């Protein structure tokens, strides 16, 4: 288990005073003090980690957020921001000596600007809520993480969330135009707007995906897009994972970027089929679902091209959806893959590494060997288009030692991803979960530079500490300038 920083006893001793101060800022029920009510906030989607927050505060206005942060800054109190709490990496895990700042009351849609193709919302609006707000106009918000019914746009900004459509339509970062941000010292700033690009450093760009460590977002402007006129899905079975992998590579090398391209392995196919009866081929070692969107002429053209590629790579079955209902049915199994796998086992642990796609065969082979080593099973679902793996490790937390084995297994998988040229996390974030693996991808110098960015925003390291970085912030130390005497290597260079 990952250790969180030791709580500050002095802050814990001032708990009631802090609660009172927060009540002066957010009156009424916005401050949650009782242990039983705080319990609802003790974990996010990474449920293996739980911690009761010192106190929960649910502000309703930007001014309140600003006052809360100003107070916490002045009193050196840690703050953990939280949206819907669906993070799979523990990004919103509370701290024993920290305030949990919930943005759940920021639920308003502020402006729909069809002309400029954007929408301005508060951070507590759900991802799906954005698309629903503009669906009458034939528009939608492209990033669609699988938790989109529940997860909020504020959390999406913090985690740079993806989804099945991000190969073609981008991650959150590619779709956010502007934010209102409260800094840790209470200052309110606006980054971006309805226009393109930034002047000066791209602060909006670094904010997205910063896992709640640089500031608290209180308003978000995102790009909305016209809905594609149509979409059809292909469901293609393969006798080998390699065949499916080669098919994916050739689709892309041919120049086709599908709206979605997902792979499932045999165990995931079985689980999903048993759960939703989507007609998945149970004899297949790998299943691809490839969605092609656009106008009918384009879809027909691309379906024919993908079918031809699939058959060249030994597809054992291939079906194109003939109706919208059938397309949704193809997807139903994939979208329910996590709960479906959940029926096979009391608990599962979802990983999120990305690999160069050409390594898929090697990686799955090595994972099979690890299954034997750790005596745990893995089901694989895979955003095949962008190489983002979601191995689901099946375990039973009630059996002594099994959670630890699952975590060790997961860490080995992530190390393997890095070893073959990939990364620790494609879309779920580092959070608490992968914090101590950061060293497999980055050396101290790399992490120091990231910390320097953090220090520019939050020099006291009060915002969401203990996440992402294996070492707590050392701003003062990093700020020092070391001049190495004897480093005078070029005093006599020729002048031009």
């Amino acid at each position, binding site marked *: 288990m990952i250790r969180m920083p030791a709580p500050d006893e002095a802050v814990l001793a001032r708990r009631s005073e802090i609660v009172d101060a927060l009540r002066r800022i957010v009156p009424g029920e916005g401050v949650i003090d009782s242990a039983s009510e705080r319990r609802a906030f003790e974990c996010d989607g990474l449920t293996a980690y739980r911690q009761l927050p010192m106190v929960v505060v649910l502000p309703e206005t930007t001014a309140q957020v600003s006052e809360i942060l100003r107070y916490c800054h002045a009193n050196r109190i840690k703050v953990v921001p939280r949206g819907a709490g669906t993070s799979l990496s523990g990004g919103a895990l509370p701290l024993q000596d920290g305030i949990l700042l919930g943005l759940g009351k920021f639920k308003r849609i502020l402006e729909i600007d*069809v*002309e400029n*193709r954007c929408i301005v919302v508060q951070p507590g609006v759900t991802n799906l809520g954005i698309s629903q707000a503009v669906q009458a106009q034939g*528009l939608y918000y492209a990033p669609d993480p699988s938790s989109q019914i529940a997860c909020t746009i504020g959390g999406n900004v913090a*985690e*740079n969330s993806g989804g099945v459509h991000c*190969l073609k339509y981008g*991650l959150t*970062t*590619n779709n956010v135009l502007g934010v209102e941000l409260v*800094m840790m010292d209470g200052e309110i*700033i606006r980054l971006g*707007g309805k226009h*393109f*690009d*930034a*002047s*000066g*450093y*791209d*602060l909006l*760009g*670094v904010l997205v995906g910063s896992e709640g460590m640089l500031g608290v977002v209180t308003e978000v402007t995102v790009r909305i897009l*016209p809905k594609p*006129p149509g979409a059809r899905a292909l469901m293609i079975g393969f006798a080998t994972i390699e065949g499916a992998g080669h098919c994916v590579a050739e689709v892309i090398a041919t*120049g*086709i*970027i599908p709206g979605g391209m997902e792979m499932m392995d045999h165990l995931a196919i079985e689980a999903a089929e048993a759960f939703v009866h989507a007609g998945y081929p149970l004899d297949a070692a790998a299943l691809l679902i490839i969605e092609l969107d*656009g*106008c009918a*002429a*384009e879809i*027909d053209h691309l379906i024919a091209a993908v079918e031809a590629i699939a058959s060249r790579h030994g597809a054992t079955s291939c079906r194109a959806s003939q109706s919208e209902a059938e397309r949704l049915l193809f997807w139903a199994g994939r979208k329910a893959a996590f709960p479906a796998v959940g029926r096979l086992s009391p608990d599962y642990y979802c990983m999120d590494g990305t*690999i*160069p796609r*050409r390594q898929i065969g090697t990686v799955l082979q090595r994972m099979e060997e690890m299954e034997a080593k750790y005596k745990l099973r893995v089901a694989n679902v895979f955003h095949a288009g*962008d190489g983002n793996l979601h191995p689901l490790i099946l375990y039973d937390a009630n059996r002594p030692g099994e959670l630890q084995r699952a975590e060790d297994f997961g860490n080995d998988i992530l190390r393997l991803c890095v070893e073959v040229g990939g*990364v620790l996390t*494609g*879309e*779920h974030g580092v959070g608490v979960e992968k914090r101590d693996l*950061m060293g497999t*991808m980055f050396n101290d*110098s790399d992490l120091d*530079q*990231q910390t*320097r*960015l953090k220090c*520019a925003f939050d020099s006291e390291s009060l915002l969401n500490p203990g996440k*992402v970085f294996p070492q707590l912030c050392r701003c003062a130390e*990093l*700020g020092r*300038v070391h*001049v*190495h*005497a004897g*480093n005078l*290597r*070029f005093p006599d260079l020729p*002048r031009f």
Partner: protein
Amino acid sequence: MIVLRPSNDAEAQDMIGWAMAENHPLEIVAGGSKRALGRPPRTDHQLDVSRLSGIVDYEPAELVMTARAATPMADIQRQLADQQQMLAFEPPDWRKLLASNAEPTLGGVLACNLSGPRRLRAGAARDFFLGFAAINGRGDAWKAGGKVVKNVTGYDMCKLQAGAFGTLSLLTEVTLKVMPKPETSCTLLLHGLADDIAIPTMLRALNTPHEVSGAAHLPSPAARRSSVDAVANGLGGATALRLEGPPPSVIYRAAELEKLLGHGDRLDAAASERLWTEIASVESLVAGRERYLWRLCPTPARAGAVVQAIRARLASADALFDWGGGLVWLNLDAEDAGPDGGAAIIRAAMGQIGGHAMLVVAPEALRATTPVFEPASATIDALQCRIKQGFDPGGILNPGRMWEGR
């Protein structure tokens, strides 16, 4: 002037370490094609990284390319074209604009976050920037991001480097996401629309599901200068909408858009490419010497209004609209613009509607006195200072390139 020419990262690291220790600020150059972009360099020494060049790894099926930062754009484009791929952000060639014959490099394009007409749909240079190796102003080598298309491990430092004009770190190696080249393209031309009709027309086209990948409006003077006959010979201004994709899809979408917006000319793939290259590189479409060129990024629907407001006070303002109004090139007569190059009037007009303005073409003296980049609020400015201070406390890397005194 001392010119330092590292042949590898270790040498570059030593040189920056030396510059820091001896307090010798460095101007970073590779090809040098963008030396006239931003505030004028005022350093005694140059760090010429042009030897840090070459494609390191290119896997077309992975959509990923890794190259040394000073790899010439021409080499990158050639390799991609051989595999029917491209940089989707359509890096513009500003050599003529910046009066340079030098060779643009990949690192320069990313450091300046330069994107062409497809930015509208595909995203900016920064959106395709996956990872890098770099050296900060302290002489520390570091890296960030990765070599895969999807990655959220740690802060997105690529965004910080893109558009930082080399003021935070020297990029030595970069990894980009590349995309397949569309099978074909065509451009619809509508003739004779006034600015205040053309912009809503472009926005209307962009709000259809027909995936318009370029939307520009050339008012009459700009249209007359085009090398594409159908643009130059049309009546009045020309409004151009580009469609790309598989041929049956492009044909269908072109017909649908024409039903909606009316019939004009259709440019085939070759003419279409010529026109969008011309729009990206700007130079041939704006008037001759003795002028200042501003690049505005306004709220798109307000592009016409902002130009009108500026024209009310600067009658010489000559505009070119790209990105469906999200990008406005504004050409000012030097005499008309006044001693600040028109900055006060332009920035006051932009302040009303949201966005930013950059002074792109102007004599060195003017770029030294008028803020080239949009001035930020005091809080944001202080934040940017702290970031610069963290990465480059000695002010060694391209000092003064973005802001005076740092």
